């Protein structure tokens, strides 16, 4: 039995996620870590996947909590807590 890649929180997005992850993991080891990359590749796989994710974040009601967390610990500061 082989190891499968992790699923998406939305089952509908899992196939798109696995396609993206395959591309990303190869890019990460073969290009990024070797300093050979100026672009985040896998764009086609990414957009297909993230479109699905964004739709389901709203549908499952995760979006409001996520918005709060983003305000508190912005992506732009690497997830560090912002001073209140």
């Amino acid at each position: 039995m082989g190891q499968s890649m992790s699923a998406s929180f939305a089952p509908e997005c899992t196939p798109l996620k696995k396609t993206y992850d395959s591309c990303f993991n190869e890019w990460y080891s073969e290009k990024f870590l070797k300093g050979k990359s100026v672009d985040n590749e896998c764009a086609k796989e990414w957009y297909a996947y993230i479109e699905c994710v964004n739709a389901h974040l709203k549908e499952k009601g995760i979006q409001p909590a996520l918005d709060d967390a983003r305000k508190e610990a912005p992506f732009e500061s690497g997830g560090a807590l912002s001073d209140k």
Partner: protein
Amino acid sequence: MKLFSNNYDFDYPWERVTAANWQKYPNAVSTHVVAVDVLRRELQDGGNVLVSERLLTVQQKVPRWILLVLGGSNVSYVREVSTVNLRDRTLVLRSCNLNYVNLLRVYETVEYTPHPADPRNKTLFAQQAQITAGGKFGRLVNRLEDWSVQRFGDNAQKGKDGFDSVLRLLSAQWDEGVARVTETVDDLDLDNLGAQMAQRVGDINAAAEQAVRESLRKFTILSDYQDLFSDTFDETRRRH
């Protein structure tokens, strides 16, 4: 607020540890993490910095009848922002629970850096968690925070051992020249490895949430939380 901190060495080069970090789940031990999604990812600084925002979906092992009685869901979420920096060779992961933040908030920072004593072959793991229980608990705040810190510590070694075993296998494969990481992982029987990283924010959060919900509803179901429950009952009696 209480702090928990912890350090470990991994006997693998930093680059490998960071590559394995993306492939932690699913695995046999941390079955509570049922899904991992990437929400946002940016390559910065001329290709030297990779920032990723992820959503971890955590499913608690709660007997079905409890869910039926209490209602609600046994699924909770953790948001993580990670930064890989090739210039200073750091991987920093910052995570926080998205559910019940007003009751208990666990904000965790994990940093992987090349080991000062052997930067080519070893990696240093440094973990810190800030645990804050909400005001609703009154005098129980301290106790809940202490309990959470204790639980966080109990799980730390297990998580370390698990990640080690995955690194060992991934490394063997990489040494054989199998560069394609995705294929490598597909070839591994991780179910039998009995482990992986894990037991991080998701675990403490899931356990704490459960304790919180059930203590609020005056249940004494799980022996793990006996102390917390008895305190809660005493407190409740005193107030009524």
